[in-house]
C-alpha cells in the first residue's frame, strides 16, 4: 500500500516532464499477485530481481526461462516472476539447473542463490559446474552475511565490516580464516569461453547490463556464465541508507567489479 502511494506521488511529481515518455514501469514478467514482495526494505535482492526481469523482457524469454532458487533470502523470489520457477534445497540449485539444462538445452536456465548456498554448502557444485563449462547462468548475491537466519558469518564476511552474530568480535583471520571470492575462484577453474563478472546493486543499470550479457552468453555461446552481485543488507548490517552505501563502497576494495570472458584476456 505504502509503495503504491509513493509511486503515485512520484508519478504526479514527474508527470509534467515525462508526459511524452513512457511511464517507467515494473517488468512485464513480474507476477503482480506477489507484490508487494516480501524482502526487507532496502534489500539488494529486489533490485537485482528487477534487473533480471527487465532483461527477461528485453530478450523476450519469459516463456523459455527456468528460474531456480536456493534457500536463504533468495527463496522469497519463488513467485516473484510470472516465469517458471522452483525452490530447491540449500546449495543444490546449481546441480538442479545442470540437470534441467541437459534435459532441455533450448531453455534459458538461471540458478539464483546467496553466498551461503554458492560458496559454502554448495561450493562443490559451483566448482564442478565451472569445470564442466555447463551452459547455465549462475547468479550469486553476495551481501557478506547470512541474512535469512539473522546475520551470521558468511564465507564472504571480511575483517572490518558490520559485526555478524557468529563472529561478533570481527572476522579476524587468525581465528576464522579468510574470505572466499567467488568470481576469482571461478576464473581460476573455468575453461576458455566462460563469462565471469562481479557487479553491484548500487548501480542497477550495471547489474542489468551484466546479467544481460550473461544470459546472452548462455544462449549464444553455450558456455558457463557466472555473475556475483555485490549486495547490501541494511537489516543485518544495522545501517541507515548513508552508511549502507558507504560500506558498499568500502567492500568494493575487497570485491572489485570486473567482467571477462575466460581465455581471452586472462
Amino acid at each position: 500500500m505504502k509503495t503504491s502511494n509513493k509511486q503515485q506521488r512520484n508519478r504526479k511529481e514527474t508527470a509534467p516532464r515525462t508526459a511524452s515518455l513512457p511511464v517507467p514501469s515494473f517488468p512485464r514478467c513480474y507476477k503482480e499477485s506477489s507484490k508487494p514482495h516480501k524482502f526487507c526494505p532496502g534489500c539488494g535482492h529486489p533490485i537485482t530481481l528487477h534487473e533480471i526481469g527487465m532483461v527477461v523482457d528485453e530478450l523476450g524469454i519469459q516463456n523459455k526461462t527456468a528460474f531456480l532458487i536456493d534457500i536463504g533470502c533468495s527463496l522469497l523470489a519463488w513467485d516473484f516472476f510470472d516465469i517458471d520457477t522452483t525452490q530447491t534445497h540449500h546449495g543444490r540449485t546449481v546441480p538442479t539447473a545442470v540437470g534441467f539444462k541437459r534435459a532441455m538445452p533450448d531453455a534459458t536456465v538461471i540458478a539464483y542463490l546467496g553466498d551461503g548456498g554458492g560458496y559454502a554448502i554448495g561450493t562443490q557444485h559451483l566448482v564442478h559446474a565451472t569445470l564442466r563449462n555447463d551452459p547455465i547462468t549462475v547468479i550469486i548475491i553476495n551481501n557478506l552475511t547470512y541474512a535469512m537466519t539473522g546475520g551470521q558469518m558468511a564465507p564472504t564476511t571480511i575483517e572490518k565490516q558490520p559485526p555478524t552474530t557468529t563472529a561478533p568480535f570481527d572476522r579476524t583471520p587468525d581465528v576464522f580464516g579468510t574470505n572466499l571470492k567467488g568470481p576469482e575462484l571461478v576464473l581460476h577453474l573455468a575453461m576458455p569461453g566462460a563469462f565471469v563478472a562481479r557487479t553491484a546493486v548500487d548501480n542497477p543499470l550495471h547489474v542489468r547490463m551484466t546479467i544481460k550479457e550473461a544470459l546472452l552468453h548462455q544462449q549464444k555461446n553455450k558456455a558457463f556464465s557466472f555473475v556475483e552481485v555485490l549486495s547490501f543488507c541494511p537489516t543485518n548490517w544495522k545501517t541507515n541508507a548513508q552508511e549502507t552505501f558507504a560500506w558498499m563502497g568500502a567492500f568494493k576494495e575487497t570485491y572489485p567489479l570486473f567482467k571477462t570472458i575466460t581465455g581471452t584476456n586472462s
Partner: protein
Amino acid sequence: MPRAKRRETKEFMQGNAVIAHAARAAGATSFYGYPITPSTEVFETWVQLCGNPHKPALSPVTKERLSYLQCEDEMASGFALIGACLAGKKAFTATAGPGNILMQDAFSAAEALRIPTVAVIMQRGGLSTSTVIYSQEEVTLTCFGGNGEGFRVVYSPSSLQDLYTYTLKSFNTAWKYRYPTFLLGDGYLGKMSGEVTRYPMLKREYVTPEPILLGPARQKSLSTNLRNCYDQEEEINSIIEQYRSDYARDSKAIAESESYRTRDAHTILIAHGIVASAAKVAVDMLRSTSARVGLWRPITLRPLDVPSLVSAVGNARRIIYIESALGQMSRLINDALIAYSETGKSFDLPAVRSLYAPALGITPTEIVEQVLKKS
C-alpha cells in the same frame, strides 16, 4: 498380460546390468550418479548403453539421445535428477548405503515437490560405511528418509527377473502418480548373475512424461512456481493432508504383494527382497513334510498391500518375520496391522516370531529350522 506378443530375449546377465537394460527399455534417457559399491555396474552398464558421447545411442522408446553425468557427489546426482525430471525426462540414479544417506537430501525435496525421480538402491551393510556387500538395512531410510512422511513408492524385487520387471514398472509408476520411486535391491541381487528374460515395454503400458517446468501450462502462458518452503504451519499442514489423501487413493493401485501357499497356512512367513526367495524355497521344503506354511511377500514396501496382508495373516496361528535387519520390515507390517485394527474391523493378531540376521544372508535351511523350532 499377453507376454507372448512381446519380443523376448533370454540372456545371462548380472543383476546391476539387468537394471540398466530395463531402464533403457522403460524409456529412460539419462542417468545422474556417483559410483558406490554394490550399485556401480548399474552406472557402468548405462554408460556402455549410451556409447560414444559424441555419437550417443538413441532410446529405443523415445528416439532421444541417451546421456549420463558423473556428478561431484550424491547431492548433485539427486538434484540433477530432479532437474531432468522437471524438464520432462525419464531419468534415474543408483546408489547405496552412505550414498543413500546423502541422496535423501534430494529425495526429500522430490517428495515435497512430487517429482517422479527413480532411484535404484542396492543395500550394503548398515551402520555407517560398514560393508560393501549386503544387508536389508536401508528399508527405513529408503521408505522414510528425510523430514517427511514417506510419500514414496518402494519396490522390493526378489530375483533377477524381478529387477527387470520392477525397473520397467518404476518409471511408469513414478510418472503416472508423481511420487519419488525406488527399486530397493541389495548387493547379492546386484552382483549375482543368471538368466533373465528381457522384453520391450508395450505401447499401451508406457506413461508419457511431460515437462513440469516450461511444459503444457507455460504454452498457455501460465507460470508454474514450485515451492517447498512455506510461511505458516497451516499452509504446510494442508499440503501434507492433501498428499496423505492422494497417497491413500493411489496406494490401492500401486501396492503389490505375493501370497504363496497361504490359503490354508497356519504359519505365515513374511519376508521381502532376496530373503523372500529363500523363504519360498523353505515353504516348499516344509510343505513336502505336510507342514501348513505359506509366504506373504510385500513387493511394495511403500505403500503396503494391506488387504492382501490381512487376508494372508487373518486365519494364521502365527507369523514369522524374516529379514537381514533388526526389524525394519516388520515395523512396517506391525504398523499396518495396528492401523488396520484401529479401523474397527475384527482382527486377531497371530503370535509373532522373528528371524533377524542383520547384514547376513539367510538360507532356506535356516528358515526351516526356525519354523520347526519349538518356541
